[in-house]
């Protein structure tokens, strides 16, 4: 699924790396706990989270993810966006709650991927 489709589905504002919206992601993970993302996630392209700090971008970068969708109306700071720019990470922000965002995206065909 193209990141662009996810942005449209979540009615999200794209805040970083708009030029990469045509990249594809094949699975996603929703969590506010970066420890769990690091420990349980594999081969996922999209991180859906309501946690906002620079470690969210670093965690996604470590996991080779390509995009982050911030939910619950959370807005990343300029510092976070600058970090995302360096990592070429698409950043989107949506008013949806986590459950709704995950539900919509899952229903459209993006799945959770393979656990370690």
């Amino acid at each position: 699924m193209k990141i662009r489709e996810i942005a449209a589905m979540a009615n999200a504002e794209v805040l970083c790396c708009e030029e990469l919206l045509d990249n594809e992601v094949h699975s996603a993970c929703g969590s506010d706990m970066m420890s769990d993302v690091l420990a349980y996630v594999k081969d996922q392209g999209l991180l859906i989270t309501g946690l906002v700090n620079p470690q969210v971008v670093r965690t996604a970068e470590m996991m080779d993810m390509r995009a982050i969708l911030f939910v619950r109306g959370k807005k990343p700071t300029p510092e976070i966006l600058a970090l995302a720019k360096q990592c070429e990470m698409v950043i989107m922000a949506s008013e949806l709650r986590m459950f709704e965002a995950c539900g919509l995206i899952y229903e459209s065909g993006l799945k959770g991927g393979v656990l370690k």
Partner: protein
Amino acid sequence: MSAPLTYRYDIDGENFTSAGEASVKVKKALRQLGFSQDVIRRVSIAMYEGEINMVIHANGGFAEVSVYPDRIVIVLDDKGPGIPNVDLAMQAGYSTAPEQIRSLGFGAGMGLPNMKANTDEMTIETEIGVGTKITMTVKVGT
């Protein structure tokens, strides 16, 4: 044997925001050296978890990454309080991280187990009041 390519980083223990910067640099360097995505990711995750641990628990320290033809060795050395019970610290879900760290998305008690899971060898040398040295090796497949 030829000398390894070595990268050294100081880990700033005062600044949670900058935690992980060294891991990002290592990841970039390994990419440039042409390692496989799997090797790069395992090294990155192990080092990032270790770096976060050093900032949460040990007021920083230093990291050294040595690249050999057949393996990558990561040494994380701190002058923190030491780990009182290594077996307990290795249990998934056990954490002594303060609540404030949990609110930042870390401290689930998965750091050390995840470092072990992503590396081929891991040794922990720790002494109470002196510090902790963790050595991790990721073998590079041929």
